[in-house]
């Protein structure tokens, strides 16, 4: 109940920035179009690259643009509020509350993600749908699985962003770590290039890292690349990272409150 209230308020809070949202949809669409033409050129040269056909590739591009803000791939989202509150010491107030910090910020981030999905997600996708030949999920089950995968993608990304923000307890400022983490995310999520194109051991490694949950796994679920048990395994992979990383968040938080001075009086 409380967490639903937190999520709806986060949704409402983000929805006040209308102009920024419109500008963002425009940017996502422009990048979607540029990437689409680039990918089409690649797949004209190699029509089965990574087991995708040209339509898969273009769909992948628009899924990536839709997910970019929804999962806050670059970092940011409500965990930026946390990092700022750690820096100023306001986090002390959060710690006075009879509610866990991780669940609190997760609920808030899910509210934010819902808003970004409906605007920065759906908006560019409509443009892509009008301009290019994008495939839709092949069955209601596939669509449902994608919805689950999307939520898990947000949770995994949240946990990593929470860990990045927590570094502020020790470093006072998250920005260096955030930039580094963002670089890892853009490369290993499959945002820049689908992980299915990564060769040999690099591909194996990339598909095992948590960032694969961000774009590659949801995209493959949407494209119907996983069926039956394989689909469960794909979602299970995301669940595994979500659980491990959320547990790490709890651990880091406990460590922080034990060892570290909360800033200021």
């Amino acid at each position, binding site marked *: *109940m*409380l967490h639903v*209230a*937190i999520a709806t*308020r986060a949704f409402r*809070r983000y929805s*006040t920035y209308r102009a920024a949202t419109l500008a963002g949809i425009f940017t996502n669409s422009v990048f979607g179009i540029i990437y689409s033409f680039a990918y089409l050129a690649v797949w004209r040269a190699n029509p089965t690259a990574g087991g995708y056909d040209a339509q898969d590739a273009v769909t992948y591009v628009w899924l990536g643009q839709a997910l970019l803000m929804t999962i806050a791939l670059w970092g940011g989202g409500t965990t930026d509020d946390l990092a700022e509150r750690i820096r*100023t*010491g*306001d986090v*002390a*107030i959060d*710690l*006075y*509350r*009879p*509610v*866990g910090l991780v669940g609190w910020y997760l609920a808030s981030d899910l509210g934010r993600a819902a808003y970004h999905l409906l605007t920065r997600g759906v908006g560019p996708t409509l443009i892509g749908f009008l301009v290019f030949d994008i495939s839709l999920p092949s069955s209601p089950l596939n669509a449902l699985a994608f919805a689950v995968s999307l939520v898990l993608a947000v949770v995994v990304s949240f946990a990593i962003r929470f860990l990045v923000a927590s570094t502020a307890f020790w470093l006072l400022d998250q920005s260096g770590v955030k930039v580094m983490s963002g670089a890892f995310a853009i490369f290993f999520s499959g945002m820049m290039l689908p992980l299915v194109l990564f060769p040999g051991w690099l591909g194996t490694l990339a598909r095992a890292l948590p960032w694969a949950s961000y774009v590659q796994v949801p995209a493959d679920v949407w494209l119907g690349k996983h069926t039956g048990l394989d689909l469960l395994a794909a979602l299970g992979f995301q669940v595994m990272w979500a659980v491990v990383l959320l547990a790490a968040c709890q651990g880091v938080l406990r460590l922080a*409150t*034990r060892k570290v*001075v*909360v800033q*200021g*009086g």
Partner: protein
Amino acid sequence: MSATGPLIDVRDLERTFAVRRRVDGRRRRVRDSVLAVHDLTFAVAAGEMVGYIGPNGAGKSTTIKMLTGILVPTGGQVRVAGLDPNRDRVELARRIGVVFGQRSTLWWDLPLRDSFELLQKMYRISRARYRDNLDRFVDLLDLGDQLDTPVRQLSLGQRMRGDITAALLHDPEVLYLDEPTIGLDVVSKGRLREFLRALNDERGTTLVLTTHDLQDIEALCDRVIVIDHGTSVYDGPLAGLHAQGGSSRTLVVDLVDEAPPVVVPGATVRRVEGPRQWLSFPADASAAPIVAAVAASYDVADLSIQEPDIEDVIRELYSRGPEPLDRR
């Protein structure tokens, strides 16, 4: 918690912080530890209003953080309402309220009402109780017109009143106030103090007040704990601070004619200006014999007594330093 035990029980509390220090001639920084709080023992009974004062860096905030469970003591023991604050932080959080003058506990982007509603859910306050409390505090603190205003648009005074309401909606047993009147104008300060006193009277809410504004203390607290260099240097009634601090009162004598400094037992002349003389005498001594002695030997036109300034008293206490350290 036992019915007779103190609400807040602090024994031999200690907190050290590890710091790294640069030492000349060495390449690496040396690990060192700083005693932020040590040998701190006090107890607060339910319903007390206690002023917790001390200079910057004395260990006030560190103590409050340990009382509320967001900082683990490195030694000694803390019990609040029978709970170990750090171990039972979440449970304790339901029973305490915290107000910071310099930080808001409200959500910046949300209307005041939304913050209150989130708190209702967070503290699981029953709908009826919530309505009652909200109506009451909104009325007493005159917040009716601000309920739908986003917090970022409130004035400091309005925000502060919002923060106090937020801290009280769940009927906390203890309210910690950190510089609650900082930056407020005189009228707002007065109203806030009045409200806090009524809260303590009517609901028996225990108040622990950290402040630099000694008028807050004088208006609200029957008892003060003075902390300096991490430990308590005074714990007792406000009035007793005068004796402890070795402060003095001043007898201002207006003589009919100019005269050399008057000589009376128990008082010394500090200043002479024409027919007016300033005599100081210990704050805990009676003024009556001194007044009588002056009147018996001189022609007096007028007399008045100036009470010692509490700030001077505390400054005096601070400058003497903590006794426990000396004893070591």
